[in-house]
């Protein structure tokens, strides 16, 4: 359990070598070993969604994933979402425009979920967005604005695709 092993994680397109114990979660590996603290810990039990990131393009809870399980797979965290020149992703822009956050602690998880929610084709209506964003708790209660932001981003991404 406790002997650290070498591991290479591909985070935001970059291979990162580190030594972690088999029991180390992906969340703790990112936060405590790689200084990628954008992904947040809210519960460590898969109950809040704050640690949501993408593994091979799908939303995953980093607190319920062992770092070892993510070896060799593409991990995208909030830090890797904006363009290389720093241009915010459409979802990030929409969160700012709609004031879809207050304290901002749940926000990285919300944004990673929202990107996936749109990609999965679950942003068709407000009711659908509410359902497919229900795994990300926001105690500040930004939910109505999160729904508006997902709708706004989905429209913008659609326009981008058409253009």
């Amino acid at each position: 359990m406790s002997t650290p092993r070498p591991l290479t994680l591909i985070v935001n397109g970059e291979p990162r070598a580190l030594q972690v114990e088999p029991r180390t979660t992906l969340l703790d590996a990112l936060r405590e070993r790689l200084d990628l603290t954008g992904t947040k810990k809210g519960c460590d039990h898969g109950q809040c969604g704050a640690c949501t990131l993408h593994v091979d393009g799908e939303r995953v809870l980093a607190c319920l994933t062992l770092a070892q399980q993510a070896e060799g797979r593409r991990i995208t965290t909030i830090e890797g979402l904006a363009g290389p020149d720093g241009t915010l992703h459409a979802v990030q822009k929409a969160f700012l425009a709609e004031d879809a956050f207050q304290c901002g602690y749940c926000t990285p998880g919300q944004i990673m979920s929202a990107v996936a929610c749109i990609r999965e084709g679950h942003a068709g209506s407000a009711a659908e967005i509410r359902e497919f964003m229900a795994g990300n708790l926001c105690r500040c209660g930004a939910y109505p604005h999160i729904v508006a932001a997902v709708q706004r981003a989905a429209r913008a991404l659609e326009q981008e695709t058409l253009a």
Partner: protein
Amino acid sequence: MSPLDAPVKRGGAGDGLPVLGAALARLDGVAKLEGSARFALDQPVEGLAHAVLLRATIAAGRVTRIDAAAAEAAPGVLAVLTPDNTAPLAAASSWTGAPPAQPQYRPLDAEIFHHGQQIAAVVAETLEQAQEAARLILVDYEAVPAITGLDDPRAGDGDPIDMLSKSWGDAAAALDKAAVRLTLEYRTPREFNMPIEPHGLIAQWDGEELTLWEPSQWLDGMARTYAEWFGLRFDQVRIVSPYIGGGFGSKALALPHGAVAAMAARQLGRPVKLALTRSQTFTGLGGRPATRQVLEIGATAGGRLLAIRQRGWNETSMNAVSVEPLGSVTGLMYALPNFDSRQNVVPVHTVQPGAKRAPGENPSAFGLESAIDELAHAVGQDPLALRLLNDAEHDHSSGKPWSTRKLREALAAGAVAFGWDRRDPMPRSMRDGHLLIGWGMAAGTYPVRRTAGEALVGILADGSVEVASSTADMGTGAHTILAQTAAEALGLPVERVQVRLGDSRLPRAPVTGGSQMAGLMTGAVHKAALAAREVLIGLALSDPRSPLRGTGANTLRLEGGMLVAPDGTAYDVSAVLKATGRERVEALRDTLAENRLKPEDHYRNFTTVSTMRAPTDGDYSMHSWCAHFVEVAVDEALQTIRLRRVVSAFDSGRLYNPKLAASQWKGGIVMGIGQALLEEGLVDHRHARLMNDNLGDYLLPTNADIPEIEVIDVGEPDPHASALGGKAVGELGIVGVAPAIANALFHATGKRLRSLPLTGQRLAEAG
């Protein structure tokens, strides 16, 4: 232009719009969206050790033995702290400034007062090692029977809190004569704040200097507590809290786990990180205590209020008195000639309760605003009409006039937007297919609290401006509205203002609580900004090379990095500074004098709440007001209750940023929905143990629980409430939500639930 770009555009003096009051996006927003905003536990600190806490598995009694041998021998373990091997700290005075009852404080104590009390800590090289070692500790206890809650017969009636006794007129006599008399009991359960950022900190010692990276709603108050615990001077403690992942009242005070982290860091000579687990956030600190109140209401047959007699109880811990004032709004909302209110606190074996959004006002309004609805039904009146009939022209509790009260306007605007006139008053009369539809409403209020603030405003050579204060932004928008305030005062676009907050080394700020931050800090920043501009103008007028020399101080304005005279003569700020050999001019100002305090009150003002002014201190009674209208749909066969829409109207005085104020109001409403329908700390009454100490079983509202929420602003600037006219925002939104939903549920089903949360099961049990 993409549709994304338009509303993000930031207003500013340059486009002729006022900056303060503009609906700007959050200035700290991008950092939070990119994941680059480092919260306290995200700080990169060299050489961190990780601590985890071990908790008591009994609720009352004492620890007789802790066997930590295996834990100490486990890989990576640096230390195990227990009651046996840690020296007591000095006890700290309370947040009111009251001296401690005992001289010593043991953050790891063998005496057990509640289940989940911290009894030991393991510090190791890695978090995983500390967690594993903590499981190896063996603890023996001597348990005694615990008092589990308000309903435990051994709890008794508790202790009266005389400070909360209020009365005028003769309530008993008026009740005896009243044509209509109702006696109603309302209850609220243990609730928890549950910010998504768990409580925790990094503690680091450098000699006798202690630095804490810790989320804090009150840096100066917490720094004082740490200083007193460890026998340090106030300025030897530094708290850094650049962002706060939500607090809602729970991050204002230094807590036992903070003491342990600082103790461990000192013992090891290494920085220590200690984050409560989610489960520990239910036992390491308390939220809103369970409450019970009995209201006796007397009214005329026409529904005019004659008297209210109120008795309230809230639970507290065995070793501290926490008060949830249930009479906060009972005598305030309506014209009430006779009132009598008393409250007891009942010690039980629980963690010391804390403050959860609108402590007092919130459960108080649940009782009163449910009871008003019951009265309306009893006298056959529309609940909105009954409220207007009983509208208070002045504050009956203090006898003072309102500063501003737009409650009638809120009721009217909310009713129109909701379509209240289409409501059929009969319970069970409105349906949508097989669903019962209920429309309910309730009003709410929150007081204007005031404490003096302090801010530093600097004007730099490039004409940009810096604002600094130790105040906190936990999502309330402090960064943004304080930049707007300085920009407005100095005639600059808001992009030219940098705001630094959340470090106790910065100029002082009182607690970010009681919804007072915006009002008091905008006042302090405004004052400091004008003072900094005066300094700059003074330099420009006295500089012999200045083209402005002799043009007169009060005609100059600051614009785009230039000082400009009415005739258009302009002089570069950088030239003024250069000519006088400065890099910047700055002004540090406080608002002690405006709050009738003296310079010697400075420390006390910022590190205790002893100088916080009551809403009735002065010539007026000052409060924010709101009205909520909600629609519920009930499926009786499935026992489900769904909220369908919310329309709420608010009088918070002047809004410094309507976009962010709307977020605060809606956030309050969402928390109110959770309180009304979902949230309940469930106690196992055999063991006085909280059973649902996790986010899967203690139900917070999710996105899928929240319908559309429309908020309407009916406020206008209140010149008495604050320097710039704003009143309370953050805590107002939650007040009145739960009774509005309870009232809607009654309208839908004809069943009255008087205990929160309002669940399908309770509805079914109501017969």
